[in-house]
């Protein structure tokens, strides 16, 4: 008893001293961290490489986004059956974070510390991934292709190990803005956007081309599933074109709400909300038991303009779409293939490709070198950037128009632009076919 009290006294004195010492420095004054050692290869053995991802597999975001990791897993299974990459199997571990940032932090540490992942691939969500951005970079874990279009991922100075993937919201909005200004000249335009970085970034792009035409700016909160007042206001303002920077659930709600009051503008939907298979499912669910139950979900989607940068599942002529349909049939989860699956599948193909380029002697440094020197030729339809000073990912979008019966028509080919005031241009870009692209043994 007495001995124990002695040691506790000593320990507590030491701790008090330590606490007092830190009490003098500000909590927000962070010292510069040393450069991390990248010449290491945790998770890599002669015959396997472990990679991880945080994904919403349960919770409110799961119905829309669980397909991303299912798609990626299917492609990695395919790659492994072809003999893997440089003789190594890809061990893909998608951990559930339920789209809760607090859980993202926990599962990410679990992946890095317990599973010793080689790289984080396609971590999903802006609020979730933001919470682990610093951690991954501080620990020297390559953070490849986060599944979100936030501008924050493309910041090589602060986060040198993070490489963006999705066409960012501003670039996409600029191309949408230019398309609308050209093809719907003189018509009034309304914006409908999610009230977070999506809305801010999208408006920054749209306003460069549409600031004269815009008559209404309406936003929604993801917690409030009623768009009645927003749609009524868009109709009242006389908007003939509505640009919707929304996630699928709110695209579906907006289309239903507009149909119920007989408002028929031209809808322009961003890639994040433009997965028609998901929209059909949502519309069928939302109309269940209502007056509109008899109306086929497709009727609401007819004429929708959608921007995209990846191959689309509706486009059965496309070689990559065909390839993904085959992979899904053999390795998929059994459900219908959606564009959300294709999102994860494309990520997986591109990661496997860069792993292949990194060569036999795989280290984190060789992966980074491969990323920065990679000449990307698909499966996306637009150029891709992962160079030393531009971690921007996909550089632009193309525009398709959907018509009922799972039919799409490309109404404007790929365009690229930057995220500030640069022009919208047609790129000189050709893709390789699945057979030509070197992404497995």
């Amino acid at each position, binding site marked *: 008893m007495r001995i124990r009290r002695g040691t506790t006294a000593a320990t*507590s004195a030491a701790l008090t001293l*330590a*606490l007092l010492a830190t009490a003098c420095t*500000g*909590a927000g004054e962070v010292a510069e961290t040393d450069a991390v050692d990248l010449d290491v290869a945790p998770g890599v053995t002669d015959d396997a490489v472990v990679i991880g991802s945080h994904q919403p597999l349960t919770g409110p975001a799961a119905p829309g986004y669980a397909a991303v990791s299912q798609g990626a897993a299917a492609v990695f299974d395919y790659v492994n059956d072809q003999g893997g990459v440089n003789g190594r199997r890809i061990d893909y571990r998608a951990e559930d974070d339920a789209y809760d940032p607090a859980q993202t932090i926990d599962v990410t540490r679990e992946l890095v510390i317990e599973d010793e992942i080689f790289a984080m691939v396609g971590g999903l969500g802006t609020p979730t991934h933001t919470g682990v951005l*610093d951690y991954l970079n501080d620990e020297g874990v390559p953070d490849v292709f986060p599944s979100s279009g936030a501008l924050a991922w493309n910041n090589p100075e602060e986060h040198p190990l993070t490489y963006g993937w999705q066409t960012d919201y501003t670039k996409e909005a600029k191309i949408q803005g230019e398309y609308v200004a050209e093809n719907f000249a003189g018509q009034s335009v309304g914006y409908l956007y999610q009230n977070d970085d999506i809305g801010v970034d999208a408006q920054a792009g749209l306003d460069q081309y549409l600031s004269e035409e815009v008559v209404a700016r309406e936003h929604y909160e993801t*917690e409030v599933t009623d768009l009645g007042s927003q749609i009524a206001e868009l109709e009242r303002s006389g908007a003939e074109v509505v640009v919707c920077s929304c996630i699928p659930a709110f695209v579906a709600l907006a289309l239903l709400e507009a149909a119920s009051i007989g408002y028929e503008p031209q809808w322009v939907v961003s890639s994040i909300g433009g997965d028609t298979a998901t929209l059909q499912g949502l519309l069928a669910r939302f109309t269940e038991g209502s007056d509109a139950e008899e109306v086929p979900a497709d009727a609401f989607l007819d004429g929708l303009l959608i921007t995209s940068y990846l191959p689309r599942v509706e486009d059965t002529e496309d070689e990559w779409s065909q390839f993904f349909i085959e992979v899904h049939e053999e390795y998929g989860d059994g459900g219908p293939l959606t564009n959300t699956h294709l999102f994860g599948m494309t990520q997986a193909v591109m990661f496997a490709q860069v792993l292949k380029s990194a060569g036999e002697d795989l280290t984190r440094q060789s992966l980074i070198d491969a990323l920065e020197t990679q000449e990307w030729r698909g499966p996306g339809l637009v150029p891709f950037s992962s160079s030393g000073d531009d971690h921007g990912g996909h550089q632009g979008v193309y525009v398709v128009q959907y018509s009922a019966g799972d039919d799409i028509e490309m109404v404007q080919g790929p365009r690229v632009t930057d995220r500030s005031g640069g022009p919208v241009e047609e790129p000189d870009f050709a893709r390789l076919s699945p057979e030509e692209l070197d992404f497995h043994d």
Partner: protein
Amino acid sequence: MTSPTRERAERAPVPTPTAPTSPAGRWRALPAPLRHLLLAVLALTGVCGLVLVTGDLAALRFAAVGYTLLAIAGLQLLVGGSGQISLGHGAFLMIGAYGMALLVLHQPMLPLAANLAIVVAVSAVAGVAVGTATARLHGPYLAGATLILAVGLPGLAHRYHEFLGGSNGLNIRTAGAPPFLQGIVSTSDWRALVVWTTVLLALTVLATISSGRLGRRMRAVRDDETAAAMSGVPVGSTKVAAFVIASTAGGLAGGLQAYVLGTVTPGSFTLALSLSLIAALVLGGIGSMWGALWAALALVYLEVWASDLAGALDLGRDVENNLPVVFFGVVLILVLRFWPLGIQGLVQRLISRRGSSASAPTP
């Protein structure tokens, strides 16, 4: 049901079940605050040892147990102590967390201790505001009123998008271990130690209050308001005091959470958080501070073990991802079916069966 035994085996070193009760006379003779402080120091030594021998991930989870423990201990005092049901405890965690994040972002030169002190003050003020308004309410009405808080408060983050960051929340970077300790303790270890030091200090205060005059008054109010009023207990102010103490503990816990995780978003402070705090408290055992410890451990570790278990059994992805919730529910139902006083009820029964002379630990 192998896991509860595993649970106990692993959690045993964290608290101080070896509370020196055998030389009972001398120990009892010490004044209550000193006794609680000594126990806290002992517990801190234990946590220090654990943090130093385990890795980063364990440190993060210890820290999570720490702040969850504090939040639940506050709730314990409110629900178990004064008999008021609050379904809005998560809202106070949110106040604390956003308070901490805003302080670090806008006043980076303030030391952590000052930030925590400010967070305590702010959440106490919030507690007074809500507590005085709800002190007149009973049972389901009080639960309903606090429910509004849990549902409504996260909306503020969207309403004041520029200031509070909307659904993406706020991200902060805080200083790690002091320079002279670098190499000995990692940043995560240091954070866990800071959290536990704060939590144990706060628990000492809570335990002292609970065993003192205010605690007796609260229990009198809980058991029978009329009788308490007739014996001269100021019912209203006692209830408000309980509410303020609980919300302060919640706010401090939220501040610590923000410090550890470095990110605050409205998505982390939903109604589900408030409800799971209450559910965990019931599981741990209402009426004893030890119940809060079991509750915090259950909240942090049951999920981890359940997903490990599902992984080991090689169940499908869908099953594996939904198992933790089911597992928590089943454990809650089973524990309440056999030990209505929760895990602490079970522990107490085991202790009293082993020897009638050994009394249950006090804090």
